[in-house]
């Protein structure tokens, strides 16, 4: 089992012929993801390396291939419209990898999606992988393995680091979700906790947060009230200076709020195991009697 993506995911790639889109489509296909269509306006009727049919619009791709999920690799200035297009075509899950999408665009995109019953993951995220089933995005497949830990993170490579530690110790994953580093995103920690709690195959959860905002604090309160599975968590940016944007648009301490210390204290208070460094993930899971 898993959350968001699985063997039934029928994926359309928006921006399939671009530099990033083509590279990652190859990787997703090689991983075994069911990529049913690609979209590049003007290239409809062509084929992606003889493996995937290309359409001019997402609507056409969905009609022809019954795609139920989309992944977006288009440049940031086109990303907002690409999300609207996927939602208009009736796609249920939209994963936006593009980095640099204006935040104001997202404030308009999100209510539009919700009215149509679609979920957005991202933007500015590495995507989702359910090991052994489907990889939607850019998370390297070779560092993951099937198992029973659910991983949710605001980061990319830091997620790979933690997943790598898990895999090396024999702890496989049900699903790893990169929710993205922007201040306003489609899917947050609570959405993922809810999913992992409901997923029978997930037996423990790893949360990787960072400075900025209050998403982790709210998720910790939610976990205390609603999640019965053991959770361990890490917060990046313990040494970050206030008022500076640490690479991710959303990673900024404003005033005295959004610090790592505040988030770690809230984890502690709500019964989430606090990792002081990435290498603590396995020992803390074992402490909570989670076995590979």
């Amino acid at each position, binding site marked *: 089992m898993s959350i968001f993506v699985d063997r039934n995911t029928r994926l359309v790639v928006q921006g399939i012929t671009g530099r990033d889109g083509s590279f990652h489509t190859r990787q997703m296909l090689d991983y075994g993801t069911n990529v049913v269509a690609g979209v590049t306006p003007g290239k409809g009727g062509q084929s992606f390396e003889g493996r995937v049919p290309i359409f001019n619009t997402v609507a056409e791709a969905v009609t022809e291939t019954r795609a139920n999920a989309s992944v977006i690799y288009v440049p940031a200035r086109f990303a907002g419209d690409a999300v609207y297009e996927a939602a208009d075509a009736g796609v249920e899950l939209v994963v936006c990898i593009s980095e640099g999408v204006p*935040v104001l665009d997202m404030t308009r995109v999100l209510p539009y999606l919700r009215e149509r019953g679609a979920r957005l993951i991202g933007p500015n995220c590495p995507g989702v992988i359910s090991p052994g089933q489907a990889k939607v995005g850019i998370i390297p497949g070779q560092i993951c393995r099937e198992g029973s830990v659910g991983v949710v993170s605001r980061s990319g*490579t830091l997620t790979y680091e933690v997943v790598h530690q898990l895999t090396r110790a024999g702890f496989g994953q049900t699903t790893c979700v990169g929710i993205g580093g922007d201040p306003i995103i489609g899917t947050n920690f609570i959405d993922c906790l809810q999913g992992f709690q409901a997923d029978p195959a997930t037996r423990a959860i790893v949360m990787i947060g960072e400075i900025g905002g209050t998403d982790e604090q709210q998720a910790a309160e939610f976990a205390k009230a609603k999640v019965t599975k053991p959770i361990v968590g890490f917060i*990046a940016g313990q*040494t970050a200076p206030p008022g*500076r944007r640490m690479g991710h648009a959303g990673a900024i301490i404003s*005033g005295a709020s959004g610090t790592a210390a505040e988030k770690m204290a809230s984890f502690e208070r709500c019964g989430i195991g606090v990792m002081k460094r990435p290498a603590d993930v396995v020992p803390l899971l074992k402490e909570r009697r989670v076995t590979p």
Partner: protein
Amino acid sequence: MNLHEYQARALLKAAGIPVPDGEVATTPAEAEAIARRLGGTVVVKAQVHAGGRGKAGGVKLAKDAAEARAHAGRILGMIIKGLTVEKVLVVPAAEIASESYAGVILDRASQRPVFMVSPAGGIDIEEVAAKTPEKILKLGVDPRYGLLPHQAMRLGFFLYRDVAQARPAAVILQQLYRAFVDAGASLAEINPLVTTPGGAVVALDAKIGVDDNELERKPAIAALRDVSAENPAEVKARNAGLSFIKLDGAVGCCVNGAGLAMATMDLVKYYGGEPANFLDIGGSSNPDKVVTALEIITSDPNVKAILFNIFGGITRCDDVANGIVAATSRTKLAVPIVIRLTGTNEERAVQILQQAGFSALTDMDEAVERAVALAGGGA
């Protein structure tokens, strides 16, 4: 990107908001000339991206042009929170009957623009929010429709009882929203919004922070960037597509990915050291970026050891290895370097590095511990 007060004032003025006259000076003589043109008492204000300018002595009242010149002479070149004052704004001293606060931010939690107004203006709004939250009215805006007239009126009446002031305030708030959207701002505030003894509502000070992701499609706003107000190494990094923030420690860090870069800094601290910087070389790194990154790190005299931490996914470890070899063959490193690489093309990377006389580790903790030790414990 933050705008200077004088830039923010100009944007508000362009949106139709009443803003007193005023001009920017870079020399005391210019400040004197502006003060003479304005006539009467003026205020000389330091233009730096820092709060608390008044407390730092960067805002002074001058009763005539000569005094304005003297104040400008003292304020220009002054260092406020590490930033050198290069410009002063000279404005007429306003007669103030009341001061309030009006601002709009992109709110992360509610995922939309939120207005915040308070009749307790002129002071730090976070302090008002903490001590007297009843003096603040917050109102979320549906960005698809903008600030509706009745919403603006509601905010206006929260600030002023008299409709003669509530109505112009409501107009100003709608203009503020327009300016916020047009600038691609994440924050736009007027503090203070004042009433004059004659009853007019006027914006006295303005602050606008722009979402960096908007700059590509808003060249006029991007052109407002003041490079002189930034750390030169950070400017060089940005131009090379790197994300860099200078800190004070001895361990220079070069990492791929923002989250891992922060976690690496944290781990340096965990092992008793202090990071010299935050540096993210980004996803699909080419060897040139690594060369620039090394130039930036080694130009910091505090750096006693360099730490590379690369988790290859999209980033190929061999690209990074080639960059390190290229950079160090040009200029020999004066400080020791510790390289940690794992993931995509790790074996090739290790081979490249070994041929050039470097060794590479695969474990993050081991690498950080070694770098901290080489930097002398960060001391």
